[in-house]
């Protein structure tokens, strides 16, 4: 049986999730040149926000009713934390040395992780997440799980919305202007502080949708889920060209497919048996990143600086 189509779909699904989280890294970087290392944890709190909504809804609520509320809960929690972090942890350090907010971001990431660990009920081990009922969908050689359907629908909608927002709305143009030159943008009447807050909030909302997709796909959320995924999403953002929102999505998909194919096929190459397998997938993902950065230091789509947003 040929498993290639299935593996490509596996990679696409994994990559879409990376892409949703990567958007947050890339937008914030594009506007304030800050790598927000707490973004993975904002993703994680989104997952717990959705779980909380599910837990307080009366038992037996249909998932179709609960899911929109869970998404709202996830987005609310994640954006509140992201905007709060921007206001109280990053803004005071703006204009200071570049390293200061970076270190704050790492501290914040630890704080969020440990806060959920310490205070969320029973979060010391993984918590089960509600599942979409029903069996898998068979499309020829490809099987798609019910939990993945959400991701397949949500990722393109989110990206379409973002493209529309950045290109067509007043605030979106303000974001582009701030990304190009914050001082001039300010002189032209753009409220840059507000723009930056919106960039953080949008990134967090996308991460929250990604977290709901994660919960539905894997059936669990836990306090550590943001760390590795955040790192991968950051890699995806760099791979696609950091600062470019389309690049984030493409970088995510390329990374996801590369990981999946490395898991499935590298061990079959003669002489590479020891270097294949799922435990090596991360290594190959980073090899790909290095190769791309050597050949194209700006990343896959990073060349049009004017479009950074």
């Amino acid at each position: 049986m040929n498993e290639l189509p299935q593996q490509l779909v596996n990679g696409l699904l994994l990559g879409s999730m990376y892409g949703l989280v990567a958007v947050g890294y890339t937008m914030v970087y594009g506007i304030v040149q800050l790598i927000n290392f707490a973004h993975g944890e904002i993703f994680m709190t989104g997952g717990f926000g959705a779980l909380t909504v599910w837990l307080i809804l009366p038992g037996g609520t249909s998932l179709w009713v609960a899911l929109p509320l869970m998404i709202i809960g996830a987005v609310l929690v994640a954006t509140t934390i992201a905007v709060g972090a921007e206001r109280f942890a990053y803004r005071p350090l703006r204009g200071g040395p570049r390293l200061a907010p970076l270190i704050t971001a790492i501290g914040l990431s630890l704080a969020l992780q440990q806060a959920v660990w310490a205070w969320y009920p029973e979060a010391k081990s993984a918590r089960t997440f509600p599942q979409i009922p029903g069996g898998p969908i068979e499309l020829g050689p490809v099987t798609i799980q019910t939990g993945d359907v959400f991701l397949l629908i949500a990722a393109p909608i989110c990206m379409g919305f973002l493209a529309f927002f950045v290109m067509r709305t007043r605030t979106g143009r303000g974001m582009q202007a701030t990304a190009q030159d914050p001082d001039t943008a300010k002189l032209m009447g753009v409220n840059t502080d507000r723009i930056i807050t919106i960039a953080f909030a949008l990134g967090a909302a996308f991460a929250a949708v990604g977290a709901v997709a994660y919960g539905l796909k894997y059936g669990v959320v836990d306090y550590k889920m943001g760390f590795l995924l955040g790192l991968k999403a950051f890699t995806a953002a760099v791979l696609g060209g950091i600062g470019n929102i389309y690049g984030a999505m493409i970088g995510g998909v390329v990374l996801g497919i590369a990981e999946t194919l490395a898991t499935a096929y590298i061990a079959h190459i003669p002489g590479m048996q020891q270097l294949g397998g799922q435990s090596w997938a991360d290594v190959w993902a980073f090899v790909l990143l290095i190769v791309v950065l050597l050949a194209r230091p700006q990343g896959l789509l990073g060349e049009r600086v004017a479009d950074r947003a």
Partner: protein
Amino acid sequence: MRNRSLLILTTAVTAGALTLTACGSRDDKGGAENGDNGNVTVTIGLDAPLTGELSALGLGIKNSADLAVKTANKKAYVKGVTFKLESLDDQAQPSSGQQNATKFVADKSVLGVVGPLNSGVAESMQKVFDDAKLVQVSPANTNPALSQGPNWASGDKKRGYKSYFRTATTDAIQGPFAAQYVFKDAKKTKAFIIDDKKTYGAGLAGTFKGEFEKLGGKVVGTQHINPDTKDFSAVATQVKSSGADVVYYGGEYPAGGPLAKQIKAAGAKVTVVGGDAIFSPEYVKLASPASAEGDFATSVGAPIESLASAKEFLANYKAENYKEAYEAYGGYAYDSTWAIIEAVKKAVEGNGGKLPERAKVVEAMQGVSFEGVTGSVAFDEFGDTTNKQLTVYKVTGGAFKPVKSGTFGG
């Protein structure tokens, strides 16, 4: 000025983060109170993952050890000695385990340590304990190399550390035992073998593979997974297309549960089989009860609910109202703790009623023999338990139920 006050706030957030992190490794001062009736206090250390993904197993170990200490004190089992349990959390990390070992060694009142859960953690602790001649009894380590040296598989068995003992039987027996059951009783002939590359998981998968092939089974694929990720879709697709009828997983339930779930969701018609580290209700929860149905796990010993020797333990455990279940290693943790109590008793008696040196307790441990919760407890020349019983458990109706107990016939 406003900027500066916010800078201070930011610093506070970062400092808060670091403090919270420190909270995670806070020592647990639980356990028995200091003896106040003129007795000397002997501390028994306990190291297990009390937080993190494996905490269900770790807390079961801690509670059971606590019960053993309380029982010994209540009975005044060793005259003039009050026992106290001091538990530290290793979060299943070798580095934390080693730090904890150093702490125990530095505390002169510690005469023995129970733990750890993970073979990989034990590896990092053995030398620290052996250098200090402090006895260590693990209720759960199953990797043979810990007691029989790195070349045990080729028959060159050599004991590395005289202070290391364990009450759980090893994977040299557990893997082959599972292979025999899978091939002979469950009649599965095509296996896909997956491990997590850790000391325990890789060792177990290796011993399973050897016996399965010897019996005539075919290994149709192998994979190594990274247990820190949750995406196993690529592996699941491979299992499906390999045509395997059984998956053997060498690893622990936090990755094993999601792995089994994704393999079955991919449409592979397989039974997932694993060792004692997936023998936990958490496995069924993570794999989802419907898809875990029919999966097997082997575990050390016989199910303690069926043993006459465990009746008292079960009743006392219930009476203490512990919040967490005793899980897979509760009985072994109780026996490990009791072995230390017996060894201390022997050493005290051999020392004219006074507290002995640590080395004497190590010596006494070699000769310990008593009827424990899990059957008779005694140690062979490698520090391994002489009780080599194992049981196969099958998920039926959403929970593991014992289906076959026995000793591995070779």
